[in-house]
C-alpha cells in the first residue's frame, strides 16, 4: 500500500470521490500531448499500418476506461445491451464527454448489414494535423477508432473499427468516418433478441 505512514489526503485512489468530469484543460495541452503520442509511436514502427495499430491500441485503453467511468457516472451502473443502444451511447454520450459535442452523424452501412459509421466533419484530434502526402490515407483518427473499439469490446460488442478520410463535395478538407464492423457473434445475438 502506498502512502502508509505518511500524511495523505486519500490513502487510496478508490476512496476519492469520482470526479464529476467538469474540469477542463486547454485544447492546446491536449493537442501537444497527442502530437507527442503520434511522434513517439512513429519512432516505434516501420510502416503506416503499424502506426495505425499502435494509435488504435492507445485509444483502446482510453475507451475501456471511458466506458467504466460513464456507465458509473451517467447511467447509474447500467450498460447498454443492444446494438443501437451502445452505438447511440458512443455517438452521443461518449462523444459529448470526450469531444464536447455529439458526433455529426451515425449511419448504417448501405452495403453490409454489420457495418455502421460515425462521421465527424472535423475530428478534434485532427484539428491541427496535416498528414503529409507520402503517408497516403493515414488518419490520426485511428486513436479515436481505438477509443470506439475499447468502449464496444468492453461492453460486449467486439468489432473491427477503423478511421477513414472521406472527401466532401465543395469542401477543401475531407471529413473523418469511423467505420465499425461488428463481429458475427454480435449480430447473431442481436437477431436472437429480435
Amino acid at each position, binding site marked *: 500500500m502506498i502512502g502508509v505512514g505518511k500524511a495523505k489526503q486519500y490513502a487510496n485512489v478508490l476512496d476519492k470521490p469520482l470526479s464529476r468530469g467538469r474540469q477542463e484543460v486547454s485544447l492546446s495541452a491536449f493537442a501537444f500531448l*497527442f502530437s507527442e503520442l503520434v511522434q513517439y509511436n512513429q519512432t516505434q514502427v516501420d510502416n503506416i499500418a503499424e502506426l495505425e495499430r499502435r494509435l488504435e491500441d492507445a485509444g483502446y485503453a482510453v475507451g475501456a476506461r471511458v466506458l467504466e467511468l460513464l456507465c458509473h457516472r451517467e447511467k447509474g451502473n447500467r450498460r447498454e445491451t443492444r446494438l443501437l443502444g451502445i452505438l447511440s451511447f458512443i455517438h452521443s454520450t461518449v462523444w459529448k464527454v470526450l469531444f464536447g459535442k455529439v458526433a455529426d452523424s451515425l449511419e448504417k452501412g448501405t452495403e453490409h448489414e454489420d457495418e455502421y459509421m460515425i462521421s465527424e466533419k472535423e475530428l478534434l484530434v485532427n484539428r491541427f494535423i496535416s498528414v503529409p502526402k507520402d503517408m497516403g490515407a493515414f488518419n490520426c483518427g485511428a486513436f479515436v477508432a481505438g477509443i470506439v473499439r475499447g468502449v464496444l469490446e468492453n461492453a460486449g460488442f467486439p468489432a473491427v473499427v477503423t478511421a477513414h478520410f472521406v472527401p466532401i463535395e465543395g469542401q477543401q478538407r475531407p471529413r473523418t468516418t469511423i467505420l465499425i464492423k461488428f463481429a458475427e457473434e454480435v449480430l447473431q445475438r442481436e437477431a436472437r433478441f429480435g
Partner: protein
Amino acid sequence: MPPATGPKSGDALFASVDRVNAELFTLTYGAIVRQLLTDLEEVEEVNKQLDQMGYNIGTRLVDEFLAKSNVSRCVDFKETADVIAKLGFKMFLGVTATVTNWDAEGTSCSFVLEDNPLVDFVELPDTCQGLQYCNVLSGVIRGALEMVSMKTEVTWVRDMLRGDDAYEMRVKLTKQVPEEYPYKDDD
C-alpha cells in the same frame, strides 16, 4: 513586472483559449505511460522518455504561450518563474502553481501544484513505485525555458502519488545564454 500593454491575467487567459474535458487529457496521458511501460519495461527508462517527451512539447509549446499570452521579455529568472506559475500553468492546464523556496542567488526555486490534472484516476502499482509519473511536466518546463535561452535542471521533490502533500518541482537555472548577440558563435 510586465509592461502596461501587457499580458492578460491567468484566468482571462484560460477563459480565452479553447478547452477540452480534462478526462480526455488525463486518460490519453495514461495511455502514453502504459505504452511506455510496455515498450521500455524498465521504469527508469520510462522516466527518461517521459522527460524527453515533455521537453519536446516544451520546445513547441513555448511559442504558443508567447503568442497568446502577450508577455514580453522577462527581465530575469525570477520574473520568468512568476510568469510560468501564474500564466503558463493556467493557460494550458487551468491550474495555478505557487513559486516558493528561492535560494539566495535567485537561480533556483520550486513550483508547487496542489491540483494536477495528469493524475486523476492514478495510483502507482507496486511494480512501478519508481515511476516519476509527472515527469512530462518537468520536461515541458525545461524545454520551454531552453527556447528562451535558459538552461535548467528540473527535478521532483514532492509527489502526491508517493504520499506527499503536494506536487513540488525544483527548477535550477544552470546557464543563461546572453540575449544580445545570439548569432556570434554559430554563424
